[in-house]
């Protein structure tokens, strides 16, 4: 019997190595796998490269992970936002590398990694700072940038309903980066808001087919209040 469910967060995060590239899903607070990030702080891996839309805020979640000195580099579209003090301090102090990627290019690079496409061309960023050092090329008289895929070692994803094969659906705007990051990592770890029986998510309603999922972690809150 295929059963990707693990006991708890610690078992879900087992084996994440120092130096790993870790994708973190979510947009805003929706679909952000907070408990897995908290678990990653516990787990102890260092020198991480984080791929996420934002660079955290306050002193929780990603910000806490960065504050604990565990992040070498962050790849994101919107690093500086309300309350991104930890990021700003570390960045100013030269203790954090930053790669800024337009949000659509970030999404497409992640999707490309999942789809076996090592590079593609896009009009986004042409004629801007983002284009510096990047190859450009004309197609049909218009200029495009070449962008590379962005694969990861680990993806931390939050889904709504998940079954033992790893099939997922998402609630509301929760698909966001989760559904694509799930395809782009060697190990995809899904925090399941609800664990359901096989077949409970109808075939036409599965958003992330189970073949993309490595481990299913039952939801639990481990966030210090």
């Amino acid at each position: 019997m295929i059963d990707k469910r693990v006991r708890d967060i610690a078992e879900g995060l087992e084996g994440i190595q120092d130096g790993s590239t870790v994708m973190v899903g979510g947009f805003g607070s929706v679909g952000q796998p907070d408990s897995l990030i908290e678990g990653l702080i516990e787990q102890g891996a260092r020198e991480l490269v984080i791929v996420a839309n934002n660079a955290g805020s306050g002193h929780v979640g990603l910000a806490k992970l960065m504050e604990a000195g565990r992040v070498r580099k962050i790849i994101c579209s919107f690093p500086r936002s309300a309350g991104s003090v930890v990021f700003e301090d570390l960045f100013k102090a030269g203790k954090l590398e930053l790669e800024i990627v337009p949000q659509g290019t970030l999404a497409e690079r992640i999707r490309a990694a999942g789809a076996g496409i090592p590079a593609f061309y896009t009009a986004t960023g042409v004629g801007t700072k983002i284009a510096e050092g990047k190859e450009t090329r004309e197609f049909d008289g218009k200029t495009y940038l070449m962008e590379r895929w962005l694969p990861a070692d680990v993806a931390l994803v939050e889904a709504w309903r998940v079954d033992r094969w790893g099939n997922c659906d998402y609630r509301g705007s929760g698909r966001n980066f989760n559904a694509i990051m799930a395809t782009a990592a060697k190990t995809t770890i899904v925090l399941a808001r609800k664990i359901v029986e096989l077949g409970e998510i109808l075939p036409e309603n599965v958003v992330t087919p189970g073949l993309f999922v490595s481990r299913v972690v039952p939801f639990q809150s481990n966030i210090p209040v």
Partner: protein
Amino acid sequence: MSEFTPLSRRAMAARVAHDIPEGWVCNLGIGIPTLVADCLPIDREVILHSENGILGMGPSPAPEDIDPWVINAGKQNVTLLDGASLFHHADSFAMIRGGHIDLCILGAFEVAENGDLANWATSAEDAAPAVGGAMDLAVGAKRIWVVTEHTTKDGAPKLVSHCSYPLTAPGVVDRIYTNLAVIDVTSRGFEVAEIVPGLSFEALQAQTGAVLHRKEN
């Protein structure tokens, strides 16, 4: 000097909303653009897109109706209309980058007379500006309208001959709605379509960092 009243942020949003035809798919940037959603005539169907994976956003929910799982790109709670759809970020930006969005309304630091848009980085030295989806939208949407105060708080013009801030995208802006005027970006530069009552063309020109043209009839 004659009397005139600059438009409020809300009035600017209403002015923009007035020009959006039924059936268009629109993406609204953060700030004044977001206010446009609440100014659309109730009998006109305009479909709002949010880059975090929503098509068919409705108005802000009453406090008791908030679903914390449904937010827009500005991270505010929103509602879903009948006919709405949900999707992931790659599909959402495929809509944007594939040219399927009729209109994107954005704020700006500067717009140049050739349509260059600067709205993401406040200086060339800023090593950590937050680009978000602005570059994708600026390049991908069929039309870009900018809505912004005509000048900065210090009175410096935001409509200029050349952008001094780093570009979001070159040559993309089609139209600008300010608190003082509606200005088209054409092949000959800024063309004034409308001025708030009581403000002269010359007075508007004085607050603008590039040559303004009168609309030819």
